[in-house]
């Protein structure tokens, strides 16, 4: 059931969250002007907005946001392609599973950021060091989820495909991949979230550019409004990463939405 646009505009799904946001922002603004909140710590939202505008006009904002987004995309691809390949192989061949699965399961629970000092020990404080660190845990996560995607395929589906004459590449492209896609996407979504956390953390620790670096730098020189702008953009990117891929998956695989809801995975 899809409610019409006008009903949606006045529905509680939209009005209540909007009201809370406005109340919080207005209270913040008012409390600062009344002197209850220290402007040095919590600059009023209007000041933050004008700083945001200034940074957007000067182009500095786009530089940092673009850098972070670029790093996120490159490291995600570095995780996605080998991770999916390894995971599918692990799900399909028992030998591959016995070899790789224990290693993946051994490395996965290691806190992702702990790889950073080890990686830069060998690669130096370079762009590749950043990207590789941000790719490791997502890679492992995608491998595990892709393997699970193949393992959980229904045998009847495979049998039906075979009976209709699908073999080898055709069986893989026409039967296995479409059936495994929803589970693959769960892995991608989780991996992107983890990759984003690590990217920001590594930027804060070690990078000049990028939103994490910008945030850390503006704290060190106590440009508080800029710090809030950095925080805000990281939050926006986080929301995009967390909920954007989910929306994309729903659009790409409409046949799976109800199924996943039914299984309680949403």
């Amino acid at each position: 059931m899809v409610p019409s646009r006008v009903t949606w505009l006045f529905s509680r799904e939209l009005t209540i969250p909007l009201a809370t946001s406005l109340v919080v922002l207005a209270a913040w603004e008012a409390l600062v002007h009344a002197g209850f909140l220290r402007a040095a710590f919590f600059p009023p939202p209007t000041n933050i907005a004008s700083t945001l505008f200034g940074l957007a006009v000067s182009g500095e904002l786009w530089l940092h946001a673009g850098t972070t987004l670029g790093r996120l995309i490159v490291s995600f691809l570095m995780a996605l392609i080998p991770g999916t390949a390894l995971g599918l192989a692990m799900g399909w061949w028992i030998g591959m599973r016995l070899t790789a699965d224990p290693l993946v399961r051994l490395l996965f629970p290691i806190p992702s950021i702990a790889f950073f000092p080890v990686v830069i020990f060998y690669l130096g404080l370079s762009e590749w060091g950043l990207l590789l660190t941000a790719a490791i845990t997502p890679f492992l996560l995608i491998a595990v989820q892709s393997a699970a995607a193949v393992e959980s395929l229904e045998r009847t589906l495979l049998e039906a495909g075979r009976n209709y004459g699908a073999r080898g590449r055709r069986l893989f492209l026409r039967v296995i991949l479409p059936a495994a896609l929803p589970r693959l996407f769960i892995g991608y979504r989780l991996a992107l979230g983890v990759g984003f956390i690590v990217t920001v953390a590594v930027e804060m620790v070690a990078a000049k550019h990028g939103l994490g670096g910008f945030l850390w730098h503006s704290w060190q020189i106590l440009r508080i409004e800029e710090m809030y702008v950095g925080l805000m953009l990281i939050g926006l990117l986080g929301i995009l990463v967390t909920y954007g891929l989910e929306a994309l998956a729903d659009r790409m695989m409409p046949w799976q939405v109800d199924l996943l809801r039914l299984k309680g995975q949403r």
Partner: protein
Amino acid sequence: MARPQASWRVLVSPLIVVVVWELLSAAGILRPNYVPPPSQLGPHLLALLAGGELWRHLGVTLYRLGLSFVFALIPAILLGLSLGMSRTARLALEPILTSLYAIPKIALLPLVMLVLGVNERTLIFTSTLTSFVQMTVSTMGGVLAVDRSILEAGKNYGATGWRLFRYVLFPSALPDIFTGMRIGLSLTLVLVIAVELTAAQEGLGAFLWTAGQTFSAKNLFSAFIVIGVVGLTLTYGLERIGNWLMPWRERSSAAMFL
């Protein structure tokens, strides 16, 4: 598909890696200053542990992790349950919870340092927030995912109010609450290590960072191994405890990697 329980076979490929690593070192292909062979690393790790220094750092990290978990636990479960049961509360807090959930909590560190100062309290507060947000969201999700038919069945058998909550709703949501605790702890461990890397003198992260900066490969690997063991214990140890405490929950090997 259910897979058979882990057996001795899972040890084979890690052992092969260790043996190959040792052989490559013996053949002179891996230089011990860069990649110390397992035969040197083992004794070094034991010596570090015997000296007590590594234990101290481990203790500091675990203390930070444990304290933030304890602080976050009760409020997160209470809030999560209320949000799961009240639609209005859920909608009202949605913007705040959504942004807090989506933002990497380490990005809040500068703000917290600004307000609370650069000290232990800041670290504990930021880690508590990490655990809190994750556990709240998981608890809420757990309540929302409770099967309607189970609730109906409970009502038909005469369970209402507290009894419905205690015997039907809560046990059904408990597996998700527990998963939230485990994921919360893992995320908090990442945060604690990340903060320790730069802003702390003590803790495993600080030890790891110092080892890297002073080019001490043996210390670096030792610290990494200890951090890895902590991560493994959190993930697999808690999963075992969960299966033991809640025999009614569905076991899924992939759910462990959320």
